[in-house]
């Protein structure tokens, strides 16, 4: 009995240990891609459902394309976002079964995208139609064009006009500064009524940081040097501003932010509940607020003096997999889908803000202030910290997480921030050097 029990216990223990291995194991999935029937070519297109283009709209898009291109059929595979990442990573890593056309949303996939340069040159495809910042920042990798930018999104500050009016505070204007942001947040906050001026930033080194100056970044643009950037005077000023914001009483508590705001996408819930007078959100939230009948305005993130203004902006990179057997047909589909016709279709039938300015100005509510405000933001310089990105880049940012926590929790004095930043430099440099070993170029 004793020995048998022990054997059973040990066997169960071994099985449980083995299950930890499985935590790391992915599933290999393959998808057949080649389906030639007579002269008709079938392309595999992997996509997902989103606020901008839901399944029905995308299926209509396919019909629209197929009607004008009878020799190309599109097999659209709609995947959940997380499943999409797993499937793409597995297929691209294995080198078989990848889609002809898909979102290349993760930087580690970039080297597996077909270089579009020769096709663009041959067809004299007009890349100048795209917003310049999005073209430069989102489609270029290691000296090649790896895709076309579908739609645009950007962070913007939404302000609740009713709360501003109740507090008797003037609305912010696009030339406002970080100090004005702080003062306004304090004036419109009403802690007794659980109304706060603005949210707690989730991370540093985004638009506001960049607005403090060219050296207010994690490391140099060539991804080699941390010293003089992470701990630069500009960077220190940005941290100092954040420190003041956290001590201002204008923000919700750290725990309130954590539990009451929406995960990863900004504090839209608090804004919609009239608890936040200002919130850094995005164009999707803006449309939500319109639908909810909120009385709000839109303004870009605050700047610093006359410094270059920045915006956190994004676009979906749509690429052709380098392993495609039908590059010509895939290019035909791609340039239609992410060109003026496809983006206009998605704008008119879905909620896409196109990455082509001449199409974007045809947006149904283009005359409304919030749309004008949003489109104006798109012309600011884009934060491009991960340009020429490498998969371990975010690890460098993780080295300053403790300092971020200390400022949020108030366990550090403002005068100690510089010393902490200096202390972090060697570790961040080591992390950067280590990360560069896995650079994909």
């Amino acid at each position, binding site marked *: *009995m*004793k020995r048998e*029990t*022990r054997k059973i*216990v*040990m066997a*169960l*223990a*071994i099985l*449980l*240990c*083995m299950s*930890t*291995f*499985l*935590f*790391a*194991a992915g599933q290999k999935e393959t998808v057949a891609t080649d389906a030639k029937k007579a002269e008709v070519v079938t392309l595999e297109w992997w996509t997902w459902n989103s606020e901008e283009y839901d399944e029905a709209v995308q299926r209509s898009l396919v019909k629209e394309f197929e009607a004008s291109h009878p020799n190309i059929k599109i097999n659209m595979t709609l995947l959940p976002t997380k499943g999409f990442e797993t499937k793409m*990573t597995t297929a*691209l*890593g294995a080198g078989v079964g990848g889609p002809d056309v898909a979102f290349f949303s993760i930087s*580690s*996939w970039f*080297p*597996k995208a077909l270089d579009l340069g020769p096709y663009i040159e041959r067809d004299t495809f007009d890349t100048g139609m795209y917003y310049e910042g999005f073209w430069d920042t989102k489609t270029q990798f290691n000296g090649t064009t790896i895709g076309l930018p579908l739609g645009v999104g950007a962070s913007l500050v939404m302000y609740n006009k009713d709360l501003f009016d109740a507090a008797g505070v003037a609305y912010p204007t696009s030339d406002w500064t970080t100090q004005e942001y702080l003062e306004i947040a304090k004036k419109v906050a009403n802690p007794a009524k659980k109304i706060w001026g603005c949210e707690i930033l989730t991370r540093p080194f985004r638009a506001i940081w960049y607005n403090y100056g060219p050296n207010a970044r994690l490391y140099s643009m060539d991804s080699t040097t941390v010293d003089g950037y992470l701990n630069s005077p500009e960077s220190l000023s940005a941290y100092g501003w954040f420190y003041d914001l956290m001590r201002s009483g204008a923000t919700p*508590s*750290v*725990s*309130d932010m*954590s*539990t009451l705001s929406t995960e990863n996408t900004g504090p839209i819930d608090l804004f919609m509940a009239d608890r936040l007078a200002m919130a850094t959100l995005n164009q999707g939230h803006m449309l939500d607020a319109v639908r909810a009948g909120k009385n709000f305005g839109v303004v870009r993130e605050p700047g610093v003096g006359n410094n270059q203004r920045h915006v956190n902006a994004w676009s979906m990179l749509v690429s052709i997999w380098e392993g495609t057997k039908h590059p010509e047909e895939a290019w035909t589909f791609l340039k239609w889908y992410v060109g003026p016709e496809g983006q206009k279709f998605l704008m008119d039938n879905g909620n896409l803000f196109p990455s082509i300015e001449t199409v974007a100005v045809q947006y149904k509510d283009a005359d409304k202030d919030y749309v004008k405000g949003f489109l104006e933001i798109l012309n600011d310089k884009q934060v491009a910290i991960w340009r020429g990105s490498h*998969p*371990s880049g*975010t*690890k460098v940012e*993780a080295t300053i*997480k*403790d300092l971020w*926590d*200390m400022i*949020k*929790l108030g*366990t550090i004095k403002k005068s100690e921030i510089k010393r902490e930043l200096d202390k972090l430099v060697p*570790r961040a440099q*080591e992390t950067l050097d*280590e*990360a560069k*070993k*896995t650079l*994909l170029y």
Partner: protein
Amino acid sequence: MRRPWKNRSQAEVKEAICGYISISPWLFGFVILTFIPILSTIYYSFTRWTIMDAPVWIGMENYVRMFTNDPLFYQAIKATGLYVAMSLPIVIVFGVLLSLLLNMKIKGMNFYRTLFYIPAVISGVSIAMLWTWLLQPDVGIVNTLLALVGIEGPKWFWDPKWALPSVASMSLWKVGGSAVIYLAGLQNIPPQLYEAAKIDGAGKVRTFFTITLPLLTPTLFFQLIIQMIEAFKVFTEAFVITKGGPLKATYFYLLYFYEEGFQHFNTGYASALILVLVVVIMSMTMLVNYTSNRWVYYEGDEKAK
């Protein structure tokens, strides 16, 4: 002693073949989904690999870096070790106490047993969300109740000192599942032993420590190992609630592994990390197994007499 195949009867051979055919689905699954991934993980731990490109053999570099130049590794070990030390006693002690309650002969006991087991079948993410709200410092029910009796509750998950105990206290949620196992152990204890103790005039406390607890030790041994392994694998709570913070107070090992493997795509290094965890778990399991001779009693065992 096994007999050679040639000496076995046709019926015995047939029975053996049937046996192998019966286990073949499991065997196939084990080889494909467990054994090969294990071998692959061992191989990848000696490589630099980002999934997208072919792995590059770098020998022991991942392990050298881990032990000599990776403060996050030690941070994760520390947080996980503290979590195991805090949560394990909670699960064991409260599990036993709950099983004693559930072993009482009162009306409607099956209802209570079901009630306490329900949390064991709820997903970890849901539980994490629930606890986030329970322990929310400003509007959570725990601090609200504490405020009613004049106590200002801590900031729980959002305080570096309280974050780890808060996550460990979530283990309370799991005691219903282990209590059912203890209950099975309790019901295996022969009733005549209790009758004899009663005749000898032993009180309830003495009966518990001289009969119940010693004869429950095989179940305790089983639960200790299983719960210890589960504790080492803590992940969901940190991933959902604390993200490893604040100030890395809850930066657990599997969270670090996840970030390395699935966010930073350092798959080779992540493979090395997971292998070290397996070695640690196996070592701890063997240690517990080794000490079991001294404290695990079996019915009819010399030590029990």
